[in-house]
């Protein structure tokens, strides 16, 4: 066969741009409950279909169906709902304080709350988390102090990061939450290294890490999968496919041609594609992968299929590049609403309880805010400027002492 026409560059295009109505009819959403749950020692090569299907537990009516139903206790479901609501409320409040000028920057995870919350709950407390900037739900589900989180956002006198980091770049050793980097993706292979260390030491703790769909294009994604497969590291690697990377849709990371879970196949790992707005599915898939890792059966890649309902950050205006109502029309719905519907359906939750919980969460967040603001907002410095010269090295070297003196602090 010979050349028929001139070559042309293909440039991906999302389904809709501002002013248009997104047509989701081409989006294949498999029914809940259809996929089997394989044993955790299933070889990766017999699991390739999981990268192209979608693990879903909650059906349209809110029933939990199929083998992947993790059969959580009512207490766990209630806790999950509470963490998700807290995350959303926290986000809204912090967004507002940024608008009020009390801090410089904020990033919400609205619409994606099930990802971090269910995953934190499916992992052990000793497991180490290497998140991106959009998994604040991990901290909340680990019951990390909201006040402490806010103090970082405000860069105030109680900011444990000493005012050094942009808001939302949390870090907490106590909560097993690794310092967030501004540089996309760098944490992914670091998590693999941490997991390798745990294996080298003959320990039992595993690692988990998160990147966005856009970030999969970075080198670190490839390093992570390569080292994970070579050394069969005990790690759960997650791609949060929320469809957008600032203004570019996931097609610019390769999502037009196949799924992100499919990347796993190329490295000989199981790749699970999961309904990221289905709390039960996210929990179940994560637990499966964690058990697999913990039993020396190697790493798993999970794609969490969701939607970034929020702007990228407070610096972003999505109405410039996507239809405003796209989230509302997102076929996989809202993770909070879906879990609520399920709990109501199985009779452990009511509208009244929900209203009460909302009020309580709101109070909690308000109280935390009040306390945090008592320690100051951006501009009320967390430490003396002398602290600027600390922690560059373990001990402050002579040249930094001289520079500190030059600054006169």
């Amino acid at each position, binding site marked *: 066969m010979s050349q028929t026409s001139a070559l*042309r560059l293909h440039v*991906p295009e999302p389904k809709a741009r501002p002013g248009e109505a997104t047509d989701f009819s081409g989006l294949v959403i498999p029914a809940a409950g259809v996929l089997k749950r394989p044993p955790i020692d299933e070889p990766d090569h017999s699991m390739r279909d999981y990268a192209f299907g979608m693990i879903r537990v909650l059906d349209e009516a809110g029933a939990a169906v199929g083998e992947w139903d993790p059969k959580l206790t009512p207490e766990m479901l209630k806790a999950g709902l509470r963490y998700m609501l807290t995350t959303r409320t926290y986000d809204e409040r912090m967004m507002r304080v940024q608008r009020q000028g009390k801090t410089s920057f904020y990033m919400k995870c609205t619409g994606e709350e099930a990802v971090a919350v269910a995953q934190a709950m499916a992992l052990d407390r000793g497991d180490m988390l290497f998140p991106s900037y959009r998994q604040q739900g991990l901290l909340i589900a680990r019951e990390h102090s909201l006040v402490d989180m806010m103090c970082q956002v405000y860069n105030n006198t109680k900011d444990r990061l*000493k005012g050094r980091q942009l808001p939302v770049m949390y870090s907490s050793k106590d909560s097993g939450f690794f310092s967030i980097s501004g540089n996309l993706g760098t944490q992914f292979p670091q998590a693999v290294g941490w997991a390798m260390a745990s294996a080298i030491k003959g320990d039992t703790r595993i690692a988990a890490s998160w990147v966005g769909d856009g970030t999969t294009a970075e080198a670190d994604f490839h390093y992570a999968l390569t080292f994970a497969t070579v050394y069969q590291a005990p790690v759960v690697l997650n791609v949060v496919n929320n469809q957008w*990377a*600032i203004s*570019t849709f996931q097609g610019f990371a390769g999502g037009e041609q196949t799924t992100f879970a499919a990347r796993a196949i190329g490295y000989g790992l199981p790749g699970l594609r999961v309904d990221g707005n289905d709390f039960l599915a996210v929990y179940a898939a994560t637990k499966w992968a964690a058990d697999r890792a913990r039993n020396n059966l190697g790493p798993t890649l999970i794609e969490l299929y969701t939607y970034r309902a929020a702007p990228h950050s407070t610096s972003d205006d999505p109405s410039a590049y996507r239809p405003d109502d796209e989230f509302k029309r997102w076929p996989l719905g809202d993770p909070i609403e879906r879990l609520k519907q399920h709990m109501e359906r199985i009779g452990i939750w009511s509208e009244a309880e929900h209203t009460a919980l909302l009020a309580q969460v709101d109070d909690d967040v308000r109280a935390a805010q009040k306390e945090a603001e008592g320690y100051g907002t951006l501009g009320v*410095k967390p430490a003396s*400027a002398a602290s*600027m010269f600390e922690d*560059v090295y373990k001990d402050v070297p002579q040249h930094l002492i001289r520079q500190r003196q030059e600054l006169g602090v």
Partner: protein
Amino acid sequence: MATMNMIQAINSAMDVMLERDRGTVVFGEDVGYFGGVFRCTAGLQKKYGKERVFDAPIAEGGILATAIGMGVYGLRPVVEIQFADYIYPAFDQLVSEAARLRYRSGGEFWAPITVRSPCGGGIFGGQTHSQSPEAVFTHVCGLKTVIPSNPVDAKGLLIAAIEDDDPVVFFEPKRIYNGPFEGYHDRPLVPWSKHPLGEVPDGYYRIELGKAAIVREGAAVTVLAYGTMVHVAQAGAAEAGVDAEIIDLRTLVPLDIDCIVASVKKTGRCVIVHEATKTSGFGAELMAQVQELCFAHLEAPIVRVTGWDTPYPHAFEWEYFPGPDRVKRALLKVMEG
């Protein structure tokens, strides 16, 4: 002639080159449909089509690598690295490939690429949106490094960079995108529209790479600066009340050493100002060359005013930023010495 801020001037440079040369292509993260997070490429995709102005995967190394391939083909790629802090994943392709290709192929292949990237602090960007990494590029032979300080220069230099047959790293101090910033963060920003250098010719013109500009003539001391610091230096000199000769380097490599030497020989004193961290910053090279070539003329030690050797801390941005007061003190010290 139009009034432009630096964003518009940079946009205009690409517009002019996309128009003049079918080989010019522009790509990078968010630069296509959206027009860039700082809007430097706004409107260009619409005007020139998405085959010539397009979004890229979030892979700075891949952006550089594909740009090199396109350059080898014969195009003139202009790529944006969203923040200078994120140029490091592309470092290998820049240093090992773009910079060495002409040399290692005996002159048969080369990559006429331009790498645009916003640099510098002062916008509450924290440690990963404030860096000034120019020095490391100046150490890499085969690369040219440019940093404009105003709209007129930005457009003329960017056009020259795009037309250049060598790879050029073009840093844009984001703090001065909208107006000249003298370092007084608590005063309102004067926009470029109120500044003579905000008057920018509409069409094609170039400012030769490798030529510095004397932005203020003076007899007492030479101040070497570039980017945002050109404005801070002017403020610092005014505060000090010193008759400083202020040189805007504009291009770091190749350096306009003749202009520098002539000035220092005249003044006998020199202050160097940059925002980047001190140790092995470009100020060190400047200081080295000045002492090599003007030793007998120096009446006082040269002084560097730079960022501290720490990351750029979010809450201590203004303690970090080398502002006019530090320049003033350096000038007074040099005048004493």
